């Protein structure tokens, strides 16, 4: 193990026991003992008031060859049906800031045919360069072909950092790329920073359902890779005067996927793209049934948003699974989240607490949801929600 307890210094104060996210530390005979559950996160090292816990450095991963050969910050510009996803522009906004701090160039990787206008839009959104892999077989997403194209590009151009959206596409194939190019990848980050001296990307993400935050680095391998939750980074305003370069390439070999896309089925009625919605109106057990959710749909429509649901509501059959928000559903971070009749189970909070503004409406003043809310309304959802819809329609005139 890479963490040692100095028995002569340890006072058995239990500070480390309380701090350990993995419950791996016990006090035996007044001394801390680190058990098998240890994940070497180092939380105990910082927690120890008497400096009795140390992380041994020689255990850390051996650095790869020449890190300085890797230059430039890349973002993966995901497209669906020829349209670049909003998260790509959020990545460009943050990427621009990080690239400028590091004194390096910002490039976007775009895959598919007929995307010249989208490439131009990426330059206007902040990219210095767009690597456009112009191949019609990339219009559709397939894990294997996307992974091989991006891995080949990384091996050829050696970027220092690669960022992608934590979308269903990004989270499906970016891990394959990181595995292939033998580097680290941090999933679903909500905050990025840089250590300028070491040129290290500081990747912060929630863990244990958002109960702790962890900052993760990739010291000895390049590129440093992360997927970023949609909606948490700010996009920059498009600048039509921005100049940049489009580097067109074709895949090294003819792309043949072992999977075939037969059909795309969009769900009727509700918009289910809740991951990228700016406003979400979510309901829980307190909505009582499908009628309650019809009310929420009216509120969502009045706000230009979409409807989400808790696990309890989905399990009761009131809303289909793609609307489920929380640990076993989707993770969202809209600008506005209105929680109606939701008590605030930890699994639900895990899926929505990175939202910008949270409003909670619940008749139980002690509901946990109020702890994470910016604005709380204690009241009956069947009175408050209709009043809110009415008020919103009035103010629109």
């Amino acid at each position: 193990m890479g963490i040692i307890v100095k028995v002569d210094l340890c006072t058995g104060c239990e500070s480390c026991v309380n701090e350990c996210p993995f419950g791996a530390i016990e006090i035996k005979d007044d001394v801390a003992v680190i058990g098998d559950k240890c994940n070497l996160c180092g939380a105990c090292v910082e927690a120890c008031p008497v400096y009795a816990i140390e992380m041994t450095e020689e255990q850390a991963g051996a650095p790869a060859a020449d890190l300085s050969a890797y230059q430039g910050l890349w973002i993966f510009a995901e497209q669906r049906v020829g349209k670049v996803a909003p998260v790509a522009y959020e990545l460009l906004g943050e990427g621009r800031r990080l690239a400028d701090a590091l004194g390096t160039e910002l490039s976007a990787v775009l895959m598919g045919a007929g995307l010249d206008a989208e490439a131009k839009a990426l330059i206007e959104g902040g990219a210095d360069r767009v690597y456009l892999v112009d191949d019609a077989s990339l219009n559709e997403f397939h894990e294997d072909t996307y992974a091989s194209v991006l891995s080949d590009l990384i091996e050829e151009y050696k970027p220092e950092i690669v960022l992608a959206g934590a979308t269903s596409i990004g989270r499906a194939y970016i891990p394959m790329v990181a595995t292939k190019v033998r580097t680290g990848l941090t999933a679903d980050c909500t905050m990025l920073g840089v250590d300028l001296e070491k040129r290290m990307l500081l990747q912060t993400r929630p863990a244990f359902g958002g109960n702790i935050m962890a900052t993760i680095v990739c010291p000895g391998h390049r590129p440093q890779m992360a997927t970023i939750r949609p909606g948490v980074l700010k996009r920059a305003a498009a600048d039509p005067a921005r100049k940049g370069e489009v580097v067109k390439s074709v895949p090294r070999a003819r792309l043949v996927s072992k999977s075939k896309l037969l059909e795309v089925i969009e769900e009727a009625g509700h918009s289910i793209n809740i991951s990228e919605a700016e406003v979400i109106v979510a309901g829980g057990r307190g909505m009582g049934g499908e009628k309650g959710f019809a009310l929420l749909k009216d509120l969502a429509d009045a706000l230009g948003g979409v409807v989400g649901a808790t696990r309890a509501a989905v399990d009761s059959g009131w809303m289909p699974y793609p609307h489920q928000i929380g640990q076993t559903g989707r993770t969202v971070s809209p600008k506005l989240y209105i929680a109606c009749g939701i008590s605030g189970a930890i699994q639900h909070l895990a899926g929505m607490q990175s939202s910008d503004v949270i409003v909670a409406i619940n008749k139980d003043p002690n509901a946990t949801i109020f702890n994470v809310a910016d604005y709380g309304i204690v009241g009956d959802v069947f009175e408050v929600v209709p009043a809110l819809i009415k008020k919103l329609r009035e103010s629109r005139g």
Partner: protein
Amino acid sequence: MNIAVCVKQVPDASDVKIDKATGTMVRDGVPSILNPFDAYAVEEAIALKEKHGGNVTALTMGPPQAAEVLRHVVAMGVDDVMLLSDRAFAGADTWATSYTLGLGLKRLDNLDLVICGKQAIDGDTAQVGPGVAVNLGLPFVAYVRKVIEVGGGKMKVERLIEDGYEVVEVELPAVITVVKEINSPRMPSLKGKMKAKKLEVAPLSAADLGAILENIGLPGSPTKVVKVFSPPPKGKRETLVGTPDEQVSALVDRLAGIKVI
């Protein structure tokens, strides 16, 4: 159909409570369970075996006590298990975990399908399934919500995407990850429980797997956690009082004031 399922032992999140004073998680006495997403993977594997014949093997990497989750899945109906356990595996990130599980999976002959849960609820990375696919050199399909049919060396599935579903056909052998919507995991049977009780789990070490030491555990992991902290307190926690009309007026004023609406 020979199917392997990768499973993980995780702390039971439904038992996790928040200390209201400090805002941190209370972890004392939190029991370990089978990762909930893995239960869907196990169920799907058993259901496919019941339909097409064959064998289901469950693998896990973890400390010796992770044998408990293997007992649990045997009680559900899994045929064989493999425990990858060695102190040298400790501190593995998703890269090293994928590599290690890949070595275990390569020991299984004539594998048609590997099923993983979408993600584990302790790490929430969703990176090990795709990582395993690359280590095995197999095609991968993420977020499967339904297996439509299997036959002729292919499998047709529905997978969840942001705007709906895709129907995808993939050549076998393949690796898939599954979401909660795919099935309802069965309860362990009495017969299964008896089998699980008698189950002897012989752990495989790094040496047994022929693992390259630079690729496993902490030394094999490119990522390092440098800081763990409690999230900053969320929410202004302003309670809006009055009649429903007064409450919603106050709300609309505030939301308009911060330009959210």
